[in-house]
């Protein structure tokens, strides 16, 4: 008995060694437990899709320490721009984040005078015009300049009836679309982002959040029908939370809102008309059930502070409370959860901004004053490959990558769905049923079962028809004989 158990351990440890030796980057050496969600919304262990490679400070860039940086952006030439808020400057760094290329702290106005920044909180570089858009927060302006530091345009507080003049104009984040329209997130405006035409004219607000219909708001709505105007004026108004961050991807603008009390519209995908495409889909971003922090005695409610769209369409949402990046594919299926709240590499204190370039994620921490670079693991790259194929409709081509994903992580639910869809397309209905069951997907199972049933009936139609006829005949004969027997018995009774 003892010997056999020792043999077993030997074999098992050998297997473990072999398993550990093959893939280079699949084992989780992160300073946190990597997890994902299953169909029931319960956290289950998972493989890491990204692993923290290194963290870069201002000193590493040769630009001196940063002070509370709040935004990072990578332009089309793979140059990084970091809004170093506390030092009133913009740092431009090379694509590997090794050296600072240029430090922008002074700009030259069109009339030749010099101007400096005051707490810049947002930076954007447009591909079409090669201009920098800087949200110059404390100067109450958006500075548009070329890459040599010559100011092209200054966007200031709009003089418009739509813009309440009592409110300040403190730009938080800024982006520009292909046409050159400028969108500015302001931290005291809840009616959406301020939108400016390419020549700096205020054109209105864009993409306001909705108010979450809580019980209190609904009851207030009903009460308001009967309230007098004077009373209504004295009531606290219910306003939606403002937009916190955004990113532009082609024709769509993605916004996120950092609110610990509101769960509607935390992440939106807006089209050119400002309509939210995610509005009618029942989507949840961030942790399903907020984690309870024992040491601080509070719930860690997700607060998504920044959003970034990868080149392949993945949506990266940065949650400040938990220090996690939630990566979704373009259909909003959760792919990976990366990061944590920690002092080690891969953990954050106050995560402020996220940026993705190729297969890397860059996260800016405004308390640690560093940029952490996450590299895609082997597992991550294969999931991305399979997801991209799957979302483009190449189910069969995605089959092998999905099998590979399952080999690395048998808990990955999307892979089961992918395999089931591929097998269904291939005509292996029995296999599709098996994998749909493993994926906990009744819808897929239904499709596979319907096809399987159709095929089964077609193949065995002869036998089924013959069986039915024989059974019906036998039943008829039996019934007839029984009837005759009872009739005979009745007759006998009468004769007696």
């Amino acid at each position, binding site marked *: 008995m003892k010997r056999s158990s020792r043999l077993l351990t030997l074999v098992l440890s050998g297997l473990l060694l072999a398993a550990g030796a093959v893939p280079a980057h699949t084992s989780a050496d992160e300073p946190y437990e990597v997890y994902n969600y299953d*169909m*029931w919304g*319960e956290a289950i262990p998972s493989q890491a899709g990204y692993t923290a490679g290194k963290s870069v400070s201002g000193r590493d860039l040769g630009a001196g320490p940063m002070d509370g940086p709040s935004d990072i952006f990578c332009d089309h030439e793979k140059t990084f721009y970091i809004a170093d808020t506390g030092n009133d400057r913009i740092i431009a760094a090379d694509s590997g984040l090794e050296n600072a290329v240029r430090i922008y702290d002074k700009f030259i106005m069109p009339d030749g005078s010099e101007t400096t920044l005051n707490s810049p909180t947002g930076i954007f570089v447009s591909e079409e015009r090669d201009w920098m858009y800087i949200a110059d927060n404390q100067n109450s302006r958006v500075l548009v300049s070329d890459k040599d530091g010559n100011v092209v345009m200054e966007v200031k507080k709009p003089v418009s009836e739509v813009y309440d003049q009592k409110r300040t104009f403190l730009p938080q984040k800024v982006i520009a679309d292909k046409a050159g329209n400028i969108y500015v997130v302001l931290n005291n405006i809840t009616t959406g982002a301020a939108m400016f035409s390419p020549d700096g004219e205020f054109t209105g607000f864009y993409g306001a959040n909705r108010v979450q219909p809580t019980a209190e708001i609904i009851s207030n709505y009903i009460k308001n029908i009967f309230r007098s105007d004077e009373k209504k004026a004295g009531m606290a108004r219910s306003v939606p939370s403002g937009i916190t961050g955004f990113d532009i991807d082609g024709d769509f603008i993605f916004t996120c809102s950092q609110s610990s009390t509101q769960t509607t519209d935390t992440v939106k995908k807006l089209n050119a008309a400002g309509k939210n495409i995610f509005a009618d889909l029942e989507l949840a971003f961030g942790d399903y059930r907020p984690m309870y922090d024992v040491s601080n005695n509070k719930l860690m409610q997700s607060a998504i502070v920044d959003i970034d769209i990868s080149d392949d369409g993945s949506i990266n949402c940065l949650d400040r409370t938990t220090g996690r990046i939630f990566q979704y594919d373009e259909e909003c299926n959760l792919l990976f959860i990366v990061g944590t709240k920690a002092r080690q590499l891969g953990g954050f204190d106050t995560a402020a901004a996220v940026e993705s370039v190729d297969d890397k994620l860059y996260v800016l921490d405004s308390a640690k004053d560093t940029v952490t670079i996450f590299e895609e693991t082997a597992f991550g790259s294969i999931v991305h490959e399979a997801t991209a194929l799957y979302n483009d409709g190449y189910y069969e081509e995605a089959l092998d990558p999905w099998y590979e994903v399952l080999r690395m992580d048998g808990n990955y639910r999307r892979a089961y769905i992918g395999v089931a869809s591929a097998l269904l397309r291939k005509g292996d209905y029995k296999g599709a049923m098996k994998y*749909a*069951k493993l994926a*906990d*997907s*009744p819808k897929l*199972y*239904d499709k596979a*079962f*319907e096809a399987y*049933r159709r095929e089964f009936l077609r193949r065995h139609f002869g036998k089924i028809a013959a069986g039915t006829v024989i059974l019906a005949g036998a039943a008829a004969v039996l019934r007839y004989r029984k009837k005759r027997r009872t009739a005979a018995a009745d007759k006998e009774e009468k004769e007696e």
Partner: protein
Amino acid sequence: MMDLTQRQWVRHAVTHPIEGFEDMRWKKSGSVRIAFFIVFLLFIGEIFDERLFGFQFGIPYDKTFSIVPYLVKSFVLFGAWVVGNWAVCTLLDGEGTMKNICIYSAYSLVPYIVQLFVNVLLSHVLVSDEVVFINVIRLIGVGWTVILLFSAVRSVHQYSGGKTVFAVILTIAAMLIMLFLLVLFMSLVQQIWIFILSVYTEISYRFRV
């Protein structure tokens, strides 16, 4: 006339909703053993309906399995119904004994149980577009059982129609009260148990020091 075996009586009662139970009463038939077997089948059927249903109609939560809800749905509810009905109808000049109430009520559950098993079988043949068949069978099963229960209460106590409705409403109220008291009692027992336990721990600590 009507010399049926106990098993044939079940069929007769179920297939003759109006006079079946009257006949049974007249012949003083019905077996407690069969009644308990039927309730046991109800228990099995409830589990099957939840656990063995076709996956195309939804996947049950299978990380944990607790038998208690199924016990409550079958034995406890049935027991509450029998005791409640007996308690109410004794006050309302009902003629039924506890034994007869138990037998008649159990017999009237048969269509519902048959529906459970038939639907579990059907759910492995149908796809989700054809869910209407399952719903119709369920509706028939439940409706039939309700009619049979009504008829059972009426004939076991020899009531008029109006009085039966009244008795059934009172029975349901009695069931609710009983279940409420049961929950109350259980939480009380729990509290007492915790109290005894903490006293014991306290004393045991004192002795150790």
